[in-house]
C-alpha cells in the first residue's frame, strides 16, 4: 500500500488535527479490549481444564462415531465344534434377521472351512485363521486353549491374554478366542430402511416387492398387500418411521401453536406497553418488565414446570414456547410500535376518528408487515428451540434424538432424525423467507 511521507503528514496534521490526534480511549481502547478478552479466554481455558480434556479426548472415536451414522455391521460368529465342523451364528436382532441364510460374502470351502470377504480375505479353518490385509498375511492358531499368532504380530493385530483382536479399519474387525472367531463386518448404508426382518417383504428385491404390491397373492388375508407394506414400513422396528414422523410433526405443531398464541396475547399488550400509543408511564414500564420477566424465565424453566403440571408431551412444549414468546414478541412488537411515524395518526385524529379507528388506520398499516415478519421468524427459530426442550420431556423429536444418542449405539437413527429435522428447518426457512418478502417487500426488515 502507498504510504504518505512525513511532509504530507505534517500538512494533513495542521489541516485536520482531529484525524491524527485521537483521545486516549481511541488509542488504547482496542488493544485493552483485545488484551482483556485474551486474559478471559486464558482464564476460561484454565477453568474448564481444556488442554487436559482435549488431550484425553478419544478423537479416534470421532471417526468411528461418524462412520456409525452411515454404516452398520453384521456380526457372524464362527465356532469350531468338538466334531471338527464349524457353525455360524448371529446375535439376536441381527440386521439379517433371525436364522438367516448364508450371505454371499461368506463362502464355504470344500473342506468345511469358511472364507469371509474382508480386506484381503479372512480364512477361518479348524485349527487356524488366516487374515490377509495391508499387504501381509497373518496366521492365528486357534486350536489350543489360547489363540496364538504365528510370527511377529503387525501393528493392526493386538494380542491379549486369551484373545486376539484384528483391526481391519473400515471393513471391520475380528475378535479371536480359542475355537471361536467373532467377525464384525462393516457395510455402508442404512439397513432394513423400508422393512425389518419381521416383515414378509424383508429380503425381497425391489422388483419382487413391486409385483407383490401390484398383483400378488395376499400375504396377509385380512388386508391388502399395499396396506400391509405401509403397516410394516410405519412400524419398522429399527427405524420407527411412524414414531419419528409423529414426533417431528409434534415439534412443528409445538412451535406453531406456541408462536401463534404468543402473538395473539402479545399483540394487545404491546399497544399498552408502547410509550407513544398509551401515554401511561407506569403501565408502559410495568408491561415492559413483565415482558422481560417472561423472556428471562426462558423456555427451559417454563418447560420443566409445565411438564410437571401437564405431564410430558407437546402440550407442555407449546405452553413453554407460548409463555416465552409473550415476552419476546411483546418486546419486539412494542419496539416496532415506538418507532412508527406519527404523521398518519395525527392526520386521522384530526378528522375526528375514534381511538380504535386511529390505531386501525394510523398505526396498524405501518407495523403489520414488521409484526408478521417477526412472528414468522420466531416460528422458524422456535422449531429449533422446540427440538432442545423436547429433550427435557416437553414433547417432540428432541427426546427421541436424545434417547438414541444416549445408547451410543443408534447413531444411524440419530442421523435419520437429523436429516429429517434439517429438511424441515430448510423448508420452513424457505417458506418464511418467501412469506416475509411477500409481506414486507424485497427490502428486508
Amino acid at each position, binding site marked *: *500500500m*502507498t504510504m504518505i511521507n512525513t511532509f504530507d503528514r505534517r500538512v494533513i496534521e495542521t489541516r485536520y488535527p482531529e484525524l491524527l490526534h485521537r483521545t486516549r480511549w481511541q488509542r488504547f481502547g482496542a488493544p485493552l479490549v483485545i488484551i482483556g*478478552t485474551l486474559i*478471559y*479466554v486464558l482464564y476460561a481455558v484454565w477453568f*474448564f481444564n481444556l488442554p487436559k*480434556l*482435549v488431550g*484425553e479426548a478419544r478423537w479416534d472415536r*470421532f471417526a468411528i462415531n461418524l462412520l456409525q451414522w452411515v454404516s452398520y455391521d453384521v456380526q457372524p460368529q464362527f465356532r469350531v465344534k468338538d466334531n471338527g465342523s464349524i457353525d455360524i451364528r448371529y446375535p439376536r436382532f441381527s440386521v439379517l434377521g433371525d436364522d438367516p441364510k448364508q450371505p454371499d460374502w461368506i463362502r464355504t470351502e470344500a473342506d468345511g472351512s469358511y472364507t469371509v470377504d474382508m480386506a484381503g480375505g479372512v480364512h477361518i479353518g479348524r485349527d487356524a485363521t488366516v487374515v490377509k490385509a495391508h499387504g501381509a498375511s497373518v496366521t492365528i492358531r486357534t486350536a489350543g486353549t489360547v489363540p496364538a499368532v504365528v510370527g511377529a504380530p503387525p501393528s493392526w493385530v493386538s494380542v491379549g491374554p486369551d484373545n486376539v483382536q484384528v483391526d481391519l479399519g473400515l471393513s471391520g474387525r475380528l475378535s479371536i478366542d480359542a475355537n471361536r472367531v467373532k467377525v464384525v463386518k462393516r457395510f455402508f448404508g442404512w439397513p432394513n430402511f423400508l422393512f425389518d426382518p419381521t416383515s414378509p417383504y424383508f429380503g425381497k428385491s425391489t422388483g419382487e416387492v413391486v409385483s407383490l404390491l401390484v398383483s400378488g397373492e395376499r400375504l396377509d388375508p385380512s388386508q391388502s398387500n399395499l396396506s400391509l407394506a405401509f403397516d410394516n414400513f410405519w412400524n419398522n422396528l429399527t427405524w420407527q418411521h411412524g414414531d419419528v414422523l*409423529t414426533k417431528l410433526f409434534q415439534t412443528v*405443531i*409445538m412451535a*406453531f*401453536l406456541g408462536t*401463534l398464541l404468543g402473538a395473539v396475547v402479545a399483540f394487545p399488550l404491546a399497544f399498552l406497553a408502547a410509550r407513544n400509543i398509551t401515554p401511561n408511564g407506569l403501565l408502559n414500564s410495568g408491561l415492559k418488565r413483565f415482558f*422481560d*420477566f417472561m423472556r*428471562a*424465565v*426462558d*423456555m427451559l424453566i417454563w418447560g*420443566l*414446570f409445565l411438564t*410437571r*403440571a*401437564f*405431564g410430558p*408431551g*407437546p*402440550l407442555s412444549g*407449546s405452553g413453554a414456547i407460548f409463555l416465552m414468546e409473550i415476552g*419476546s414478541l411483546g418486546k*419486539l412488537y412494542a419496539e*416496532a410500535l415506538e418507532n412508527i411515524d406519527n404523521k398518519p395518526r395525527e392526520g386521522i385524529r384530526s*378528522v375526528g*376518528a375514534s381511538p380504535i379507528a386511529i390505531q386501525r388506520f394510523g398505526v396498524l398499516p405501518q407495523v403489520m408487515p*414488521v409484526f408478521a415478519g*417477526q412472528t414468522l*421468524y420466531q416460528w422458524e*427459530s422456535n422449531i*429449533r428451540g422446540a*427440538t*432442545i*426442550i423436547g*429433550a*427435557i420431556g416437553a*414433547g417432540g423429536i*428432541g427426546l427421541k*434424538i*436424545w434417547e438414541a*444418542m444416549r445408547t*451410543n449405539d443408534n447413531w444411524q437413527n*440419530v442421523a435419520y432424525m437429523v436429516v429429517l429435522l*434439517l429438511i424441515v*428447518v*430448510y423448508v420452513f*426457512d424457505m417458506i418464511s423467507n418467501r412469506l416475509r418478502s411477500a409481506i414486507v417487500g424485497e427490502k*428486508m*426488515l
Partner: protein
Amino acid sequence: MSVAQTEPVLKETTREIVTAWERTTSSRRLYTVIGIILIAIGFVGSVQYADEANAGHFFERLPHLFDFLQWLIPNDWNDVWRALFDRASPLDNGSEAYDFAAGRVYVWGDFYIPEYFELMITTLNIAILSTIVGFLFAVPLAFMSARNITPSPAIRFGARRICEFLRAFPELVFAGLFAAILSAGPVPAIFAIILHTIGALGKLFYEIIENIDMKPDEGVRSVGGTRLERIRFAALPQVLPNLISYGLLRLEINVRASTIIGAVGGGGIGEELRLAISRGFGAKTLALLLLLFLTIIAVDQLSAWMRKKLVGEHQFLLAH
C-alpha cells in the same frame, strides 16, 4: 367523520379507477379472510392434536395446575437464602432436600463459593467462551461469504453452505456427539454452542458486510491495498460496531442455550435445576430460579447498555 351528502357524478375514466380499486381491495380482503380462516383451522386442529398427544390433558389437569406448585413453597422461607448461600438449614435431616452446606466449594481456608454460584459461573463461562470463539470464527467466514469482498463464487458458496449447515444443525446433536468423544460435562456443551454460534453469527455478519459503503474500499484499492488491507482499513471499521453488538446479542442467547444444554446433561446450573424440579426440592428450586433469573436479567441489561453505546438506538429486530 362527516361524509359528503351527495354522491358526486364521476367521469368515465375516474369511475374505472374506482371500480378497479374496489376490485383489488375486495380481493385483498378475501385473501385476508381466507388466511385468518386457515390459521384458525390450523390452530384448533393443533390444539386438539397437542392435547391428545400429551400425557396429561389440559382440562383434566387444569384444576390441579396449582397443586404441583405446593411443593415449591418451602417450609421455611429463609431456606431459600440458606440454599442460595449454602448455610446449614435447621430442617436438615440428612436428606438431599436440605443438605445445603454439603455443596460448598472451598477456595481458600474457610472461604467458600456457594455451590449454585459456582454452577452459575460455569454456565456463564460456557456462554462467554463459546461466544468469543464462535465470533472469531464467524468473522472470516462471513467475509468469505460476502459478495462484495470475495469475488470467487466457489468460496462464497462453500462458506455460505457451512454457515447454513451449522445454524440449522441441532445443538443437541452436536452436544451428544462431543459427549461421546470428550467426557460428559461442560466441554461438549462449549463445542456445541461454538459450532451453532459460528453458523448463526456468520449468516448475520455476511448480510451486514454486503451492505457496507464501498467508497472507502475503492480508496484503499486506489492506493494499492491488498485484499487484507482493504478488509482491515475499509470494511472492518464500518462493520465492527455492528458485529460486536450482534455478538453481544448472541451472548444473551447463549446464556440461555448453555442453561438448556446443561439441563440435558451438559453440567452447570441447568442440570441442577432440572434435578431440583423433578425431585420437588422447593427451597433449592426457588434459590436456583432466583439466581438464574437475576443473572439473565443482568446479562441482558449489560449487553443492551453496551449495544446502545456501540451503535446508538439501533434496532435489532431479527434477534436470533
